[in-house]
């Protein structure tokens, strides 16, 4: 029985790590612009699908394909900000949120036209011999997922607390007006936010594609799960959202294993609703009167 529980835990953590990365993407954009970017899941999809494309159709080596995929997705993120978000800077957040939904449908549609409706897989980074840990098994790819997620979180932390532009971005998230008064180019920070979160989304898509496979529509569900993670973490672009993602993944795995696998997605969304009703500021944050 303890082996089973360990297996649920490991499965949950690896799924949760992916949720975390997508969740942080949501949070970064939310903090710099005040909008929920529902195209976040599409960045995840673009990461996986374009890696597949560069790898299997253009026949590039895996590291090059991954790098190009991140660059391409980042370019799409930047373009999206330039073309869809920036021209409407004065629109209300609600309108912008709806624009991001439209954007996600557009990106998904274009991906479908270019790459077709099939599911594709990309090879594991290093072998597919399972490793045994205390009776539970994981794949080398899971270690990649944990490692890369950890690395991204560290870089993220360093960027936001130790660099000028990172600090400027945090300033924007606290008070955009005050930030611009002290000479921070808020528009540029918004652009940065989109670049960073699209890059992170694509990395999440790339590292999970060898395990979960990818197709033009994988972004919908994972985008929502990432959103749940960000809500649990109170839209923090740091460690709270990571915990949110991991918690969600683990609860899903235990729920599927111990209660019923039919309720797996229901568990995620019940948590989302509960948090929104009871602790809208997130699970780990003290209540504030004003979010900014």
């Amino acid at each position, binding site marked *: 029985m303890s082996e089973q529980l360990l297996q649920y835990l490991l499965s*949950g953590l690896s*799924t949760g790590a992916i949720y975390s990365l997508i969740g942080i993407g949501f949070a970064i954009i939310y903090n710099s612009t005040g909008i929920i970017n529902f195209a976040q899941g599409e960045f995840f999809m673009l990461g996986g699908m374009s890696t597949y494309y560069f790898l299997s159709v253009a026949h590039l080596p895996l590291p090059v394909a991954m790098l190009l995929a991140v660059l391409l997705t980042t370019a799409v993120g930047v373009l999206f900000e330039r073309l869809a978000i920036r021209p409407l800077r004065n629109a209300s957040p609600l309108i912008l949120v709806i624009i991001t939904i439209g954007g996600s449908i557009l990106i998904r549609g274009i991906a479908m036209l270019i790459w077709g*409706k099939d599911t594709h*897989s990309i090879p594991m980074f290093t072998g597919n011999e399972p490793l045994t840990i205390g009776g539970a098994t994981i794949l080398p790819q899971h270690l990649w997922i944990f490692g890369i997620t950890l690395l991204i979180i560290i870089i993220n932390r360093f960027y936001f607390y130790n660099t000028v532009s990172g600090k400027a971005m945090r300033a924007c998230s606290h008070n955009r007006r005050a930030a611009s008064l002290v000479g921070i180019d808020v528009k540029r920070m918004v652009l940065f936010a989109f670049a960073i979160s699209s890059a992170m989304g694509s990395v999440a898509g790339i590292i999970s594609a060898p395990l979960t496979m990818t197709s033009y529509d*994988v972004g919908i569900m994972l985008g929502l799960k990432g959103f749940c993670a960000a809500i649990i973490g109170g839209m923090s672009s740091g460690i709270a959202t990571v915990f949110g993602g991991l918690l969600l993944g683990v609860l899903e*795995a235990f729920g599927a294993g111990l209660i019923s696998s039919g309720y797996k997605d229901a568990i995620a969304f019940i948590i989302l609703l509960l948090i929104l009703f009871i602790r809208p500021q997130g699970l780990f944050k003290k209540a504030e009167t004003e979010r900014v």
Partner: protein
Amino acid sequence: MGKFVSFVFALLLIATATVAQAAPTIRIGGLFSVTGPASFLGEPERNTLEMLVQEINARGGVNGSKIELFVYDTQGDATKAVQLATKLIKNDKVVAIIGPSTTGESMAVIPLVQRERIPLISCAAGVKITEPVKAWVFKTPANDQVAGEKIFNYAAKKRQKKIALLTVSDSYGSSGREQLKVLAAKKGFTIVADEVFSPKDTDMTPQLTKIRGANPDAVICWGTNPGPAVVTRNMRQLGITTPLYQSHGVASKKFIELAGASSAEGVTLPAGKLAVYDIISKKDPQAKLLREYDQAYRKKFGVEASTFGGYAYDGFQLIVAAVKKSGATPEKIRKGIEQVRGMVGVSGVFTMSPTDHNGLNLSAFEMVRVTKGDWVLAR
């Protein structure tokens, strides 16, 4: 006088018009979900139907009448399917309809065609489409239960008794799950685990860990890609060596590609013969037709033919057979289809009757096993 002349002219016009229409076209409708979530069904169905109509018209049509095809995209939406079916019947005046692609859409269209008395040949697999039998409704895909029965017969031969089910939570999976449970009870198997996963799930190790705890003799997974491929990989990851059966829903090379040849090794499933026509016996009545269909489809569309396209293929052949036999009115087509005996198609050999509007039996499937990244017949 002037009036008389124009009257004569009018008569002449009518006369010449009827002469020009000596052989009226046969109008056939197609309703497929070419775009939307079920586009993997609708696209090959539409392609196949258009290809067949072109071919047959190039050879002079059926009984000297050309076929005129009206195809609409339902986008997988039941409401749209009903609207478009109405349009086919009222505006385009078709004599028969092929489609829709999904069970939900088919069920929505059935009351309409029953009322309007137009034969409908559904391309969806749901068992309730033709059970109970409805006068004007036929379907070409084999019932899921036929595939399930094939699996259980095979499992019985291997003396497997305790079965674990792992099914996808969409309509395909839940209908499969119901059928499998009924069949298991009927054939004396015990279901020791009954797990589900959702269509876009990316990790099924929790379900499989639970299944391992129940210690089954075999696992039956019922779903369409990518879920079953993930299940196959996860089983390998967890080191579960219990025999794994998949459904006919993944009977294509794509499944082996997605699951990876090493993970998929040994997976056994009932396959429509199209997927394996190059390994079935040359004497199989379908072998020649399957090869021709696949080659023609590849030549025209650049991809391999799919079982789904085959559903439209068979639907069209049923109509052609009925028109040749009885005539091209809706009632004659309906009667003609009911009289089809031993018609070789893509999905199987059809023998219709007033009490069987599907007409397929166990021979529609072949049990195959993945060996070194390819299919071999499972004995």
